[in-house]
């Protein structure tokens, strides 16, 4: 069943002064411990199908999530155009179902599985994660999904599987951005096996309690909250277990600017801009810039994965 996200008319968008005051109010409410009010910060359109899930407070930050409109109109998804607003417009008629994913490489169980099959027996949970783009802006997003580890375990990766490689759908008819050669299609991303199996690494199928909108990577995307956003590959059609490090799209496009690891790190600048601070989308004028946290604030959970590694070299 397809999800169509209706185009939001400019007149329906809350004027900044109204939502800024609302956010201030929410910040106050949060401080008072009324965290459930945060849901009021933006609601998905009624057309999006609701999902069954449970909230996972252990893996959720207490910061107020961004509005639904912000998360769904400010997207880097070059398959649907290179401007931030392009995906919300160009992905409107994309049909993310039926969908299937091919599993291959160093695993005992390989083959092509339907999305329904992959989701079977995976209880969905909501996690409110920080999202830090390599372009030095950030969001807080209530994703709905399940740990990648519980999906990968199903295919019994062999001892030779050291990496996992993910591939996005390649179909220039359905993804008009792929008609331009701005990147080498299809988009490929990858993780080291231990990163893939980390409990924070999430397979996402929903947003704000509803089915994931097309522009955010429907029907199935990756979220690795301690890495820059481009690691979170969207609309996945292939998962391959590999003995060697995958050649990822951005690291091929500009090897000196985007590494394989892409861990959020305020001390390692992008060659062309600083990563020390970030601007939170939707925050009030003059109060949006904040210091970037090592591993995007998830250092306690993930720093041990990189012990002894030179993070400047393996950026």
């Amino acid at each position: 069943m397809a999800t169509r996200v209706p185009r939001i008319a400019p007149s329906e968008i809350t004027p900044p002064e109204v939502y800024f005051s609302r956010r201030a109010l929410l910040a106050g409410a949060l401080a008072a411990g009324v965290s459930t009010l945060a849901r009021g910060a933006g609601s998905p359109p009624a057309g999006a199908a609701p999902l069954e899930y449970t909230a996972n407070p252990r893996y959720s930050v207490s910061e107020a999530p961004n509005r639904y409109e912000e998360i769904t109109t400010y997207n880097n998804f070059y398959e649907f155009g290179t401007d931030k607003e392009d995906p919300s417009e160009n992905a409107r008629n994309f049909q993310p179902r039926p969908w299937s994913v091919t599993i291959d490489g160093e695993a005992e169980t390989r083959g092509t599985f339907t999305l329904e099959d992959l989701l079977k027996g995976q209880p969905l949970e909501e996690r409110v994660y920080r999202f830090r783009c390599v372009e030095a802006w950030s969001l807080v997003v209530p994703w709905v999904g399940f740990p990648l580890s519980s999906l990968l375990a199903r295919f019994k990766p062999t001892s030779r599987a050291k990496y996992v490689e993910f591939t996005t759908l390649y179909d220039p008819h359905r993804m008009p951005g792929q008609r331009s050669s701005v990147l080498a299609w299809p988009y490929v991303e990858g993780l080291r096996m231990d990163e893939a199996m980390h409990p924070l690494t999430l397979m996402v199928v929903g947003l704000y309690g509803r089915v994931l909108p097309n522009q955010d990577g429907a029907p199935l995307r990756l979220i690795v909250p301690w890495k820059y956003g481009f690691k979170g590959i969207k609309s996945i059609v292939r998962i391959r277990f590999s003995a060697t490090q995958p050649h990822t799209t951005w690291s091929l496009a500009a090897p000196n600017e985007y590494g394989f690891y892409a861990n959020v790190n305020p001390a390692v600048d992008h060659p062309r801009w600083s990563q020390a601070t970030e601007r939170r989308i939707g925050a009030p004028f003059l109060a949006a810039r904040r210091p970037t946290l090592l591993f995007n604030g998830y250092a306690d959970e993930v720093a041990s994965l990189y012990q002894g590694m030179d993070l400047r070299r393996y950026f």
Partner: protein
Amino acid sequence: MNVTQRYRYLYKPLVFVAGLAPLAWLTCGAFGLFGVSLGADPVKEIEHECGKTALNFLLLTLAVTPAKSLLGLPQLLRLRRMLGLFAFFYVVVHFSVYLILDLELNWSTLGADIAKRPYITIGFTALLLLIPLAATSTNGMMRRLGRRWTQLHRLVYVIAILGVWHFYWQVKRDVREPLIYAGILALLLLYRVVRARSAARAAASARAHLTAAPGSATAPERT
């Protein structure tokens, strides 16, 4: 109305209002007036639009000279100062938005950006170079500086190159738009190179003609 009056009372006010239109649109967007929306990140939108508007005015300024000779409209020159000053104005707004709304007056980041980020270094250089041009844009300064005014204002070629380069360098991957700017700038500069060459050739042949004339006049007498 004669030409002077038409420019003073009609064309110049029209260009002035048109020049303020981008600022008015961005202001409406920033405050959510008249249903104008700048998207999820209004700061970046204002910053980038001001930068692009500044480049637009810079290219328009550079287009005046070719346009007036190609269209046979020497009076277009009367609009050039206003176009140039609008370029300066939007560069200043662009920089102010970057400093105040984007960096939130974090002066140490500003210093580090200018020193360490090549695209910001060249953008900032372009801004600094524009200041003397704006300051000497009055009739009084033109009179006072005479020929040196023309020499000084040739800086605009350097500024335009730096400005387009600044745009090209800050784009993450999709460089199509900055390349369009670069192409237009290249044409505008090429026009001047071709003109200067043909002028130099004309001058050289005129000189040759002048020096050859007495010779050819005297030569037959000697034979």
